[in-house]
C-alpha cells in the first residue's frame, strides 16, 4: 500500500517558473547557449488589435464601398527637392538582406512590389542585380556593417535609408550564422565562408546626431541630391530620435516597433528591447508635429503590420506609410506546410519537425534550413520557392490588404486613406488608450 505524503500539494504551474521557462533554463544549462531565432516578438503586447474604428453613422456619412474612389497614392521624400518616391499604395516592403533571404525571395519581393506600384528595400549584404532588376523603386540601405556597400549601387538607388536601429534588436547589431554564409554571401560581405558573421551595432564612420547631419550631406553629394534620404530607427526613445533625425536632415523617418522581424538575433533582444509599434507611431507623429514638420517629413512605421486594419490604424495615428517584412514573407510561403514545386505539391512538415517546430510556429530563419526556401542559402531548399509564384502571391496579399484599408477609410467617410485621423479611433483597453492617446471605447477618457 502506498503512503501518501500529506506535505506534497497538488501539481501547480508556477507563474514565475512556468514549464517553458524551466525548459529554457534546462536548454541553456545543457548547451551553454542562449536562444537565437528569427521573426519578431511573440509575447502578448499592446497592438493595433486593441483599437477599433468609429465608422460613419448619423454624424458622418460614408463613401460607397466598391464604387467611390479612395486615394491611396503616397509620396515620400520631397523635403530637399529630391525626386520623391511615388507609391500607388502606402505599404512598402521593408529591408531584408540577401544572405538572410535567398536571392529568389529577394527577387520575388521586388517583383511583387513593382506589380502593385510600391517600393522594396535592400538590406545587410548589399544590392543584388536580381533585386535591382526586379524592383522599379528600390531603397538602398546604409547599415553599420557596410557589407557589400558600393557607391555604384548607391547611385542606382531610388532612395537611401540610413539604418540606425531595427525594432527587433535596437542597439543590438545583427548576426548571420555560419550555415547561411555560403560562397556568394561571403564574397558580397568580404568575409570567409562559414563564419558566424557579426553586423555592427553602430556605424563605423560617424557617431551621434551632429555627425549624422554630415553623413546625410555626404550621401546627398554622392547621389547629386537626386534621391530622398530616409533614417530608420528602432523604437526606443522615439520622441528624441525622430526630432534628431529630422534635425540632421532626414526626408523620411522610419520607426520600427518591437514586433519588427529579423532573420536572426538573440531572443532576449526580440522580447525585451524597444517599445511596441502602437505607442511608437503616436510618439513619432507627435514628435514631428511638435517641430512643425509633419507635412514636410514623412513617417513610415513598421513592426508587426499584418492586415489592412493595421495599416489603417497606423495611418490614422499619423503614419504616412507602413513597411512590412514578416507579413510579406508569410505571403511568400513562410510557415506553409506544403510547397508547390513545378506541378507537384510537396509536404514539408517533416522538415519543420527536424527543426523542432511545426508549420505556423516556425521562427528558425537563423538555421538556414527554411523548409519553404525563403530564409536559406541551400540550393536544394531554395528551389522550393518559385519566384514567379511567390511574387504573384505577395502582390495578391498587398492588393487584398489595400482593399481592407480603403474599405475602412471609406466607412470612415474618407476619400483618401491619409485623411484617417486619431479621432476615428477608440481603444478597447486602458493600455492601448494611453499608448495611442485615443479615448477608451465608451468614454471620453484618454489616460495619461
Amino acid at each position, binding site marked *: 500500500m502506498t503512503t501518501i505524503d500529506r506535505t506534497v500539494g497538488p501539481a501547480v504551474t508556477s507563474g514565475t517558473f512556468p514549464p517553458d521557462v524551466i525548459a529554457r533554463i534546462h536548454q541553456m544549462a545543457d548547451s551553454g547557449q542562449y536562444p537565437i531565432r528569427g521573426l519578431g516578438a511573440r509575447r502578448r503586447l499592446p497592438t493595433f488589435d486593441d483599437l477599433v474604428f468609429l465608422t460613419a453613422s448619423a454624424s458622418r456619412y460614408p463613401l460607397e464601398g466598391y464604387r467611390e474612389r479612395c486615394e491611396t497614392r503616397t509620396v515620400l521624400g520631397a523635403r530637399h527637392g529630391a525626386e520623391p518616391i511615388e507609391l500607388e499604395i502606402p505599404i512598402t516592403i521593408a529591408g531584408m538582406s540577401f544572405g538572410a533571404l535567398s536571392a529568389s525571395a529577394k527577387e520575388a519581393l521586388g517583383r511583387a512590389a513593382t506589380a502593385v506600384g510600391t517600393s522594396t528595400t535592400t538590406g545587410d549584404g548589399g544590392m543584388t542585380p536580381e533585386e535591382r532588376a526586379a524592383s522599379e523603386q528600390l531603397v538602398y540601405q546604409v547599415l553599420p556593417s557596410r557589407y557589400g556597400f558600393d*557607391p555604384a549601387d548607391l547611385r542606382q538607388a531610388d532612395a537611401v535609408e540610413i539604418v540606425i536601429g531595427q525594432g527587433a534588436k535596437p542597439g543590438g547589431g545583427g548576426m548571420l550564422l555560419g550555415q547561411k554564409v555560403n560562397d556568394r554571401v561571403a564574397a558580397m560581405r568580404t568575409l570567409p565562408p562559414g*563564419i558566424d558573421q557579426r553586423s555592427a551595432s553602430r556605424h563605423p564612420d560617424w557617431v551621434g546626431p551632429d555627425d549624422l547631419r554630415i553623413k546625410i*550631406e555626404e*550621401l546627398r*553629394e554622392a*547621389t547629386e541630391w537626386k534621391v530622398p534620404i530616409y533614417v530608420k530607427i528602432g523604437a526606443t526613445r522615439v520622441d528624441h530620435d525622430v526630432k534628431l533625425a529630422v534635425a540632421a536632415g532626414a526626408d523620411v523617418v522610419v520607426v520600427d516597433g518591437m514586433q519588427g522581424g529579423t532573420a536572426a538575433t538573440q531572443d532576449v533582444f526580440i522580447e525585451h528591447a524597444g517599445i511596441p509599434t502602437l505607442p511608437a507611431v503616436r510618439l513619432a507623429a507627435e514628435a514631428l508635429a511638435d517641430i512643425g514638420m509633419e507635412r514636410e517629413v514623412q513617417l513610415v512605421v513598421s513592426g508587426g503590420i499584418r492586415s489592412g486594419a493595421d495599416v489603417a490604424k497606423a495611418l490614422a495615428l499619423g503614419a504616412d506609410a507602413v513597411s512590412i517584412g514578416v507579413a510579406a514573407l508569410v505571403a511568400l510561403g513562410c510557415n506553409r506546410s506544403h510547397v508547390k514545386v513545378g506541378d507537384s505539391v510537396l509536404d514539408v512538415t517533416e522538415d519543420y519537425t527536424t527543426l523542432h517546430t511545426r508549420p505556423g510556429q516556425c521562427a528558425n530563419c537563423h538555421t538556414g534550413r527554411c523548409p519553404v526556401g525563403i530564409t536559406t542559402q541551400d540550393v536544394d531548399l531554395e528551389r522550393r520557392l518559385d519566384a514567379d509564384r511567390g511574387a504573384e502571391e505577395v502582390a495578391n496579399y498587398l492588393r487584398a490588404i489595400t482593399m481592407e484599408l480603403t474599405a475602412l477609410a471609406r466607412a470612415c467617410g474618407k476619400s483618401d486613406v491619409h485623411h484617417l485621423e486619431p479621432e476615428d479611433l477608440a481603444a478597447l483597453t486602458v493600455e492601448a488608450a494611453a499608448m495611442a492617446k485615443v479615448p477608451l471605447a465608451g468614454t471620453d477618457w484618454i489616460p495619461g
Partner: protein
Amino acid sequence: MDLLSCDCLSVREVNAALRSLPPGSTARVVQPRGRHNLAVGLADPVSVTIEGNAGYFIGGLCGTSGGEGPDIVVDGFVGWSVGENLMGGSVRVRGSASQSAGSSARGGTIAIEGDASLRAGISLKGGTVAIAGDAGAMTGFMAQAGTILIGGDAGHGLGDSLYEAVIYVGGSIASLGADAREEELTDDDVLAVKGLVARTGFDHIDPNRVRRVGSARGLYHFSTHNHGDY
C-alpha cells in the same frame, strides 16, 4: 587645371565641378577651411588637390569596384572618416587625420603622412590604410580584409575583433585587442611592406623590422565560452 575656391563655391558646387571633370583632369580646391564632404563620390580617375585643412568624409565613396578612382591629396589635416568606403584610387593626407580614417574602404589607398586618431581602418574591407606616424586606440577594429601599415606606435586594442585584414606596425604596440595576435613575419610580408613603402614613400619604415598582427580566428563562431572577450 581647374581652380575651385570654397570661399566662392558651396560644397555642392565644388563636388559638381569635380564630377564633371573628364578622366585625367587635374583640379585644385583652395580655401577649404575645414569644409566637410569635399571630393565625395568621384568615380573617374582625376587628380584633386585640396589646399588646406578639411573636415569629415573627404574623398568618401570614391572609386569603382574595378579599382579605378581619383587621386586626392589634402595639403593639411582632415576630420573623421577620410576616404570612407573608398573603392579605388587614393587619398593622401599631408597632415594628420581624425577618427575612423579609411573606414569600410574596399579598395584603393589612404595614406596619412602624420598621425591617425582612433579606429583607423575600422571595418576595412580590402583597401590599404597607411599611417606614417602613430595610430590611436582600436585601430583596425573589425577589419575584414586589406592592409593597415603603421609607421609609428599603435595604441591600445590594436586589431580588436580582426577578421582577415593584416596590420603591420613599425613601432610599439600598447596592447592588442580581442582575438588579435602577433604573428611571424614571413618573406611575403616583407615583400608586401616593401611595396607599400614604395607606394606611399614612407621610407622611414623598415620592412624587415615591422611586426605583423593578424586574427587568431577564435571569435569566428559565437560561443558563451568567449564571453570574456566580448
